[in-house]
């Protein structure tokens, strides 16, 4: 039957693979299983086989594609420059179209309508906060419990960022993507982003007309839902000099909006990850460097920052400006196994990778870790519990600035001269 939607992997995308295999050792699922069927080269070959009419989009094909994390670690190492992430999203859209199921319909609703509805998310998160306080989350089925155990405490959280506007604008204007669950579960990250950007002289607005970026829907092959969400965001972020997201998964997706929305090119070219914006502000002297020695901190590279956006220097530069010595957790940059819905859909592989990452962190001996993506943060917290404190690099940085200021003030009081 071949392909049936407009989303399918293009001939150009598939022909860019010459099967050299350089991607194999970077692929977490290949490393886990040793199977060609769990490797990027194998998956591209399977896509080719469907394209050429040799195989159908059947159950085996779906399993092979489902097992992929979508971490895109295969992309930077590929000398043929295969846009693997795009090909995978297209393939998953084909699977949804050709193999409709109750699970896909439910996920389409959750990733499209639910994540797009701020009111529902708000009510849900408030209830989740109560459940967390009453320890009801411990009663959740195991695969969901791994998700809830990675959450930050939700009760008594700060205000949502959406609707915010402030700052001088001397440095330019920023449209902040508040995010869907990001603005419910990771409010301190968004608040830190606002505070730092305004400190640097930006006008920061988080327009009310925005919605979920659609990354999770796109990764799961829910292309129509991803397109609807992108169509709402594109006009909502019109006119800002920069569009900033505080989760690497979201910034990576915004940067690919050219594919997802008419006029998406404009959003894509203006979008950057918060770590890039803050590192640049530090570099330009718009934000301070903290002189104190705050000790060691481990750095975890989210796949959608390191592989999808090729950003590694910026989060490290931020932590160094915060007075930390950066400790590398994983020079190879393997996925932690969070990978969006993967935690729920492939719990075993996800847990295995999460445990491997936890082991790497333990072996460095650090007690603090910085991660620029909320999904990774939850995955690591779920594997490590309270052993290690995990936050976004900009939160560590803002804290360091505030602590330094307090010390300066204390010193000033003690020594009035």
């Amino acid at each position, binding site marked *: 039957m071949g392909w049936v939607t407009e989303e399918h992997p293009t001939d150009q995308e598939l022909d860019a693979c*010459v099967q050299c295999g*350089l991607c194999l*050792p970077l692929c977490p699922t290949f490393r886990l299983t040793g*199977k060609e069927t769990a490797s990027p080269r194998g998956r591209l070959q*399977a896509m080719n*086989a469907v394209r050429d009419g040799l195989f159908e989009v059947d159950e*085996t094909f779906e399993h092979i594609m489902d097992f992929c994390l979508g971490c895109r670690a295969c992309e930077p190492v590929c*000398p*043929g420059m295969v846009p693997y992430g795009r090909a995978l999203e297209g393939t998953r859209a084909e699977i949804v179209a050709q193999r409709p199921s109750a699970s896909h319909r439910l996920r389409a609703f959750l990733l499209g309508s639910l994540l797009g509805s701020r009111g529902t998310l708000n009510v849900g998160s408030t209830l989740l906060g109560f459940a967390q306080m009453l320890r009801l989350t411990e009663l959740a089925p195991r695969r969901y419990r791994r998700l809830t155990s990675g959450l930050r405490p939700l009760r008594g959280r700060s205000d949502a960022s959406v609707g915010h506007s402030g700052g001088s604008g001397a440095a330019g204007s920023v449209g902040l993507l508040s995010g869907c669950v990001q603005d419910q579960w990771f409010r301190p990250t968004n608040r830190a982003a606002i505070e730092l950007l305004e400190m640097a002289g930006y006008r920061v607005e988080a327009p009310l007309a925005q919605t979920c970026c659609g990354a999770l829907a796109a990764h799961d092959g829910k292309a129509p839902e991803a397109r609807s969400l992108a169509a709402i965001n594109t006009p909502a972020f019109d006119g800002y000099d920069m569009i900033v997201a505080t989760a690497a998964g979201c910034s990576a997706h915004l940067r690919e909006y050219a594919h997802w929305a008419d006029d998406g090119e404009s959003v894509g070219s203006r979008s950057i990850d918060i770590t890039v914006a803050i590192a640049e502000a530090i570099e330009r002297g718009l934000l301070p460097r903290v002189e104190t020695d705050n000790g060691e901190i481990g750095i975890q590279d989210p796949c959608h920052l390191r592989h999808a956006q090729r950003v590694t220097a910026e989060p490290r530069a931020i932590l160094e400006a915060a007075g930390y010595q950066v400790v590398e957790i994983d020079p190879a940059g393997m996925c932690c196994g969070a990978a969006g819905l993967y935690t729920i859909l492939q719990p075993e592989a996800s847990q295995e990778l999460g445990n491997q990452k936890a082991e790497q962190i333990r072996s460095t001996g650090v007690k603090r870790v910085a991660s620029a993506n909320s999904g990774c943060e939850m995955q690591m917290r779920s594997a490590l519990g309270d052993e290690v404190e995990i936050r976004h690099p900009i939160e560590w940085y803002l804290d360091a600035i505030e602590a330094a200021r307090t010390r300066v003030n204390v010193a000033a009081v003690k020594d009035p001269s």
Partner: protein
Amino acid sequence: MSLVDDLRSALSHDRVLEEPLELHLYSKDASMMRGEATCVVLTETTDEVAAVVRIAEDHRVPIVARGAGTGLTAGASPTEGGIVLSTTLMNDIEIDVDNRTAWVGAGVINLDLSTYAEPYGLHFAPDPSSQSVCTIGGNVANNSGGAHCLAEGATTSHVLGLEVVLAGGEVVVLGGEAPDSPGLDIKGIIVGSEGTLGIVTSALVRLLPLDPDVRTLLIDFETMEEATQTVSDMIAAGFVPAALEIMDQKMMVAVENWLHAGFPTDAAAMLLAEVVGETEAVTAEAALISEMAYKNNARGVELAEDEAHRAKLWKGRKSAFGALAQISPDYYLHDTVVPRSRLVETMDEVQQIADRYGLDVYNVFHAGDGNLHPLISFDASEEGMLDKVQRAGEEMVAACLRNGGALSGEHGIGLEKRDMMRASFTELDLDAQARLKEAFDPEGLFNPAKILPEGSRCFDFGGTRRPIPEGAWV
């Protein structure tokens, strides 16, 4: 019981694959030739390999060992059907620091071994371009070389012992820690036999100390002749650097487009030279290389600034084949060796052949040992293209042989060059090799139809072997 049932009773269920799509993904390596696997097994232990071999014999099906599937001659393609045995899960490393050796599972990735040995100040010298992916088992099977094998020798110089599963599921250990094992060097026969005599499950390899210092030079030339002449001058002067690699302009452009390694894309040829050793020695040798290069009209000599720069230059060199994917969907790569003194004229002939067929040819090669890798870039979906590429490739190999060369430098013969063996060997030579194969593998089940052409054995009347399957391309 069926083959799959037997295998599943010997291995766990999830390590025996039989879905048609899964089998399709194991039906070829990185070459162009596709076979058809009956089933795929992923073994974890030598005992499991022995069990699989016995089951294959019971069912009289071929067995083809496969590592990372990066081979370029269809050595791991199941072109006669049968069981594909994947070694990727056999990846234990047991290092003996005092003796500078390691027992290494067949599925260990070449670079993983060096990474593992690094804290002990050791590394595994053979470094094929695919070293970040390819496995030790595959290296042993093909006696793989690499850029740094110029000074250190190919895989066979680094293998001290082998654990091999032979016909009947018999497990033997050949060679060992002693530098010269008594009796015939059977281990030496297994290295380079491409899985046709048995299945290597583990290798005892020699590890070398890390180099105290290194200098990497990027030298650009306005003509290919000057680049190759520089290499010839060095070797003639009795000076053998650790690595001497040449890349032509077209190849550099493709790599630069992806990696931005700083290759001189406006030069006709680039020579990447590396010397290793004590600081004083490498400083002097780098100066010597520089002098020889300028004597041959080098346009410029650049020294790698630091380890990161050096790593990037090597990444560019070692990813060159894959970078061709930017240009067209398929490539066909030949691996031949010519005497260094004949490099320039052979390359001219190769270019002429490509021109005659209207094909695009790229060059990236181990200049130090005269190991040419002409790459033809093409689109297999074009009508008649495959046939044209095949004929051009054959002519190129013939030209290399005419110039006193050998069929293969380091990629093996596999199926790809099987029928060209007759151009290199007499009937008696082939008969002797076929008798050796028979002695090891009387049933003919280990990677059949590879290396030796049909009828190699004198009085071989063809037997019952199937011809090369339809669609496969030699």
